[in-house]
């Protein structure tokens, strides 16, 4: 009932094209994350859905109804802002009650709803306080309560966790995810933090410079990023990118780069091509045979160790599971998990081996 459909949505600020023909479908009850670097247009897209900005071109449908030109208050959406935007002169109670009050709810009904939602969010003891007396985490919960108190059909959040310190942020992720599941409200969540997106989303749309790069669930996004931008943006440390060529050698295909050559057993390509090979650090293994390189840096993190291996002029990041005493400048051999290799066309930057 409360799905969001976006068709050919374009937004310009003056001559500045900020969103370029966006098409998206967000299903009911989905936890949908808009992921992209700063300035990519995530907030603008969210604000267009909320009705805070005017559409330049295209349409937005909420629950099957076209909402172009509909006032924010009539869209049945709720929003949580990055700085929470609590009303500083109202108590927490009044902050949460206001959306109900202006919709003409009775006093009793308001009191009951506020009590319910503040119970869910564990802020009952804060109701008499003013926003400035609250900690960051508490303010965030109040902002959530204010947004959720009227059972909106769409719940919009613009980087709501970025003002929290690291520990709280991780707690809030878990909390928010289970809250969303419990309430079943269609949620659109904006973030530039790919680990946040991976942790929470049921579906992720990657945005760059005003265009959608990929829409996928976290698993697919991680395993099969459809273009080089997404491949580089999702995952930390970033995917290794090695420019080279796909060449045909008799019946077999080979990858030939400046510093390495690989036999691509069992893979098929349409034609020879200039490509960029992508491989995640955890899909590179240290082994007894393979390509020889020199370890240039060692980053022991505990459960894993990251090794940067220099092969000629190419640096390859390798994830080694467990803690190992490895000395820099020692020589190693590495191998690739062939079924995890991704090849992107050098010109179109699109994934070739789907």
């Amino acid at each position, binding site marked *: 009932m409360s799905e969001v459909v976006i068709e050919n949505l374009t937004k*310009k*600020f*003056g001559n500045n094209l900020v969103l370029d023909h966006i098409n998206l479908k967000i299903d009911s009850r989905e936890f949908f994350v808009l992921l992209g670097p700063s300035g990519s247009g995530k907030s603008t897209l969210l604000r267009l859905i909320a009705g805070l900005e*005017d559409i330049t071109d295209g349409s937005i449908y909420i629950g099957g109804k076209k909402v172009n*030109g509909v*006032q924010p208050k009539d869209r049945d959406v709720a929003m949580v802002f990055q700085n929470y935007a609590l009303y500083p002169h109202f108590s927490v109670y009044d902050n949460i009650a206001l959306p109900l009050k202006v919709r003409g709810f009775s006093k009793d009904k308001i009191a009951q709803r506020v009590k319910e939602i503040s119970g869910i969010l564990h802020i009952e003891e804060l109701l008499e306080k003013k926003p400035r007396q609250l900690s960051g985490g508490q303010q965030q919960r109040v902002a959530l309560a204010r947004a959720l108190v009227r059972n909106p059909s769409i719940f919009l959040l613009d980087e709501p966790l970025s003002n929290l310190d690291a520990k709280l942020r991780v707690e809030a992720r878990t909390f928010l995810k289970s809250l969303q599941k419990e309430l079943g409200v269609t949620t659109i969540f904006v973030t530039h933090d790919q680990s946040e997106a991976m942790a929470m989303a049921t579906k992720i749309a990657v945005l760059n410079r005003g265009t959608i790069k990929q829409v996928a669930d976290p698993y697919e996004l991680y395993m099969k990023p459809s273009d080089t931008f997404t491949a580089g943006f999702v995952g930390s440390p970033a995917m290794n990118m090695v420019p080279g060529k796909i060449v045909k050698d008799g019946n077999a295909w080979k990858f030939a780069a400046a510093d390495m050559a690989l036999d691509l057993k069992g893979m098929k390509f349409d034609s020879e091509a200039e490509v960029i090979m992508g491989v995640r650090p955890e899909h590179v293994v240290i082994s007894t045979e393979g390509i020889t390189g020199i370890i240039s840096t060692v980053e022991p993190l505990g459960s894993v160790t990251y090794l940067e291996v220099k092969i000629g002029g190419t640096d390859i990041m390798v994830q080694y599971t467990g803690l190992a005493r490895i000395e820099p400048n020692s020589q190693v051999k590495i191998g690739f998990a062939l079924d995890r290799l991704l090849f992107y066309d050098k010109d179109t930057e699109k994934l070739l081996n789907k």
Partner: protein
Amino acid sequence: MNRKQATKIGLILASPLLIYFLIFFIYPIFLLFRYAFTNTAGSFSLSNFVYMSKDPILYSSLYNTLYYFIGSVAVQFSGGFLAAIVLNSYTGRLKNTFRMILYIPLTISPIVIALIWLLIFNPTYGPIDYILRTPINWLGSLNLAMPTIIVANGWEYIPFVFLIIYAGLQAVPKQYYEAASIDGMNRLQTFRYITMPSITPILVVAFLLNSIGILQGFTLVYVLTNGGPGFSTYILSFYIYKVAFAYFNLHYAAALSLLFIFIIGAFVYAMLKLTSVERYLGLKRENAGDE
């Protein structure tokens, strides 16, 4: 919300101001034109402007206004600047108390300033003449009347310039000075390369606001000298008042008012063209934003 709705809401909220503006600024200026371009019989006439061109009192009023303006700017800026630098450089407690003491004259009504200086500059019983050991007829002498008014007026408005410059000095980030001291700048170099460039916008705005305030001057002349001795302290605002309400020639006074507005307009226009004062005032932003 689209553009049209936004404009409508804006116009409704601004309507009290817009209506007031129409009735109390546009219509008055229209009235000024109507009066200025008619004679006492009510028919169209350029006689007011013809008379204006050869009115000796107007010429001396203009000369006095310029004298008063330049003198006041000089007194108020040097005084205000000095006080601001001194208080800003002083490192001790009571800075806010000193600031308050120094701005108190700014709260005082010009009419009381007039009274105070009547008492203080009195040649027979006043403390100034006693300290100087000679009775001087400050307000009754052709050469001293205007400087006396400039000083009395300065006493009230030096604090204004002081406050603005002091606030500007306080707003210069401390790191600039720390960087300067690491770079090995001496006091003078720091002032020249750090302080001055940082407060230039503030000086320009202070000059604009202060000038407007100075040209408002009327009360001191009215009470202290009534334009005299002779016409030596006639300034434009006082002359307009005299023509309108002592000689009851509203038509000529209207013509003089238009001249006054024109002069101020030219001054402000020049300020806007020659300086970035509009940007400093926040009227113009660097990137003009939305569509």
